[in-house]
């Protein structure tokens, strides 16, 4: 059962996400609109995007609180995701041993950052004004995912060995179900279902900022309109 669900969810996510990216890639950028000062070379643009993705440069200029909360959340999420690879490979490479504790700290940071971002959304009048119910639900969903994950680490430990064995078998079994022998096992199922929800809404929501940033013309264009003619594909000759 869960296998079928997992496959459907992953397919929705991948097809949805990639088809959005294809739409972005295929839609033309008729004019040069880089926000200047902008890099004058392609390499410079790559660096601009890399620093935007890793350090959130523009956000740092714009809003220190959002920057701190956002960077903490995304950084921690990255570490947590890397740590999760251990549940999908067998045998687990030695590299994951020391990562275990770092991953757990990252989980705490992630939940803390999400809480901080939620508070910020509620307490700053301008940010509260612009927030829709959906904006809160995203944060709550992510908090629930982080929360169920942390609960499994600190309180309700599921039978992770059995789960993993089950998971590994799941890829080839349609009927396989994870064990449901303890509160921890239930917690795991909840965690998994919440992630499934996140995956399904991802391509249809603002979470598309993950791929969309790379297609933002103000950030990904080289500032060389005089040196090189930029061609508008739909312009009439």
């Amino acid at each position, binding site marked *: 059962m869960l296998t079928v669900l997992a496959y459907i969810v992953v397919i929705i996510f991948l097809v949805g996400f990639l088809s959005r990216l294809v739409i972005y890639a295929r839609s033309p950028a008729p004019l040069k609109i880089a926000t200047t000062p902008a890099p004058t070379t392609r390499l410079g643009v790559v660096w601009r995007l890399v620093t935007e993705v890793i350090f959130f440069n523009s956000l740092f200029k714009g809003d220190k609180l959002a920057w701190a909360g956002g960077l903490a959340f995304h950084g921690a999420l990255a570490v947590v995701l890397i740590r999760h690879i251990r549940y999908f490979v067998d045998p687990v490479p030695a590299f994951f041993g020391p990562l275990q504790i770092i991953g757990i700290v990252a989980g705490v940071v992630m939940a803390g950052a999400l809480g901080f971002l939620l508070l910020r959304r509620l307490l700053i009048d301008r940010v509260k004004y612009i927030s829709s119910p959906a904006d809160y639900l995203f944060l709550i969903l992510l908090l629930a995912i982080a929360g169920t994950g942390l609960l499994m680490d600190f309180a309700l430990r599921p039978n992770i060995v059995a789960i993993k064995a089950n998971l590994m078998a799941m890829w080839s079994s349609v009927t396989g179900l994870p064990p449901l022998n303890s509160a921890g096992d239930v917690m795991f199922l909840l965690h998994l279902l919440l992630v499934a929800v996140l995956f399904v809404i991802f391509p249809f929501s603002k979470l598309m900022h993950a791929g969309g940033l790379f297609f933002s*013309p103000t950030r990904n264009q080289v500032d060389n309109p005089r040196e090189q003619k930029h061609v508008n594909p739909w312009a009439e000759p």
Partner: protein
Amino acid sequence: MADHPVPIVTDDIKTPLVKTDTMAHLAPYPGTAKHMEPMGFPGERVENWQQKGIEKLGELLKKYRSLQVYLDICVKCGACTDKCHYYLGTQDAHNMPVQRAELMRSVYRRYFTPAGKMFPDLVRAVDFDEEVLQKWFTYFHQCSQCRRCSVFCPFGIDTAEITMAAREIMNAIGVGHKYSVEIIGKVHQLGNNLGIPKPALKGTLEFLEEEILDSTGHDVRLPLDQEGAEVLLVAPSADFFSEPHIQSLMGYAKVFHQAGISFTISSYASEAANFGMFIGSYEHQKKIAKRVVEQARALKVKRLVVGECGHAWRVAYAFWNTLNGPFDFLDPRYPAPQHICEFTHDLIQRGALTLDKSANDNLRVTFHDSCNVARATRMGPKAGGQFEIPRDLIRASCNHFFDMDEDTIREKTFCCGGGGGLLTDELMDLRVKGVVPRVTALKRVMEQDKVNFMALICAICKAQFTKVLPMYGIPMEMVGGVHQLVSNAIQLGAREGVV
């Protein structure tokens, strides 16, 4: 003119609390059939405007990656909420960039996303109805397309792109802004925004030649339609008739004269400004800009130089090549087009001009970076040259220069409050409030550094500041062009021009 409430200017730029609809009353004058139809727009609102509007939005989503991506990826982080000068001056929620864009995003979600179709309340998706259209017409004419928000957005979302699209959609359903469409009509007809016919232009230029002769004793020419000149100078038409713009025009002429480089102004392409950009129309932008290229060929010039005008420089620098390029018929040794500040700067570097800084000793100068120059263009070969080159010119022309607060200059500069097609009397209430951040920073250097002159490189900035600064008790003589300073300092006849 009616009195407009003038906000109190405090010591520092403060972020006000959000209010709803403080500026809901201020819609611009709608375009009438007389102005709309010659532009290819419906003369009045079309019957099935909702359907047509949505169709147009769908069409633009396929034509502009910026629009498609920017409508999708905003995470509502709020970093832009305190960046717009109109928000800072009016407190109106819809003048927060994200909330302005939300006017379109909420419609986009309703018609183009599964979530908006299925759960409109959850994701705040709304129908494109009468109330929404009124908000569009009001608040998409309270954005000056200055792009300050795009600097601080983690994804570079540029509200100007969304405003342009909104105006294009509204024009397509017959809901236009009189000011912009009327002006574009004049350009198509007479070659410039002010509607100056050739004889009047000729008369003005001759008058200015006499004026310079009287004041300097030098025979500085301002030629019109002169075939075979080295340079075609394309200035904003305000430079021909308005104060203080005209002082800069005389400055350009003196620079050409002293450098010994022949130039001409064209009566057919007597306008650098391009309001086609303000209404988001690629076609009108192209048509307006085409006059310049045609004249460059017809007059057989080798170089194109653009006068002091912010969005004009954006269109020229970033769009001309795409619209009507390439400029391979011009002298490849010079950038095409070239900004007048680049042109003068280059001459100074090469020792072609002699400037006497003491001529401006009565002035203590600061510089207002024009929004479109700062955030949408470049001058010179290096990124950021658009900040340094005008400042270099000022420093070369006067002894006392002081920058304003660093959060209000360079890429973080504030719009003057009159850009983007909003320089019209019926929007004066907005223009007066929108200038507050700039006035705050200006007043500070006036007190701290005894600054008494703010140098500008934009026709709209010049017109806006001369009109609104007096309402804040600052005399209109406080502002003028960078080339006004150059004009004061340049020593005519000091040496032979070197080219």
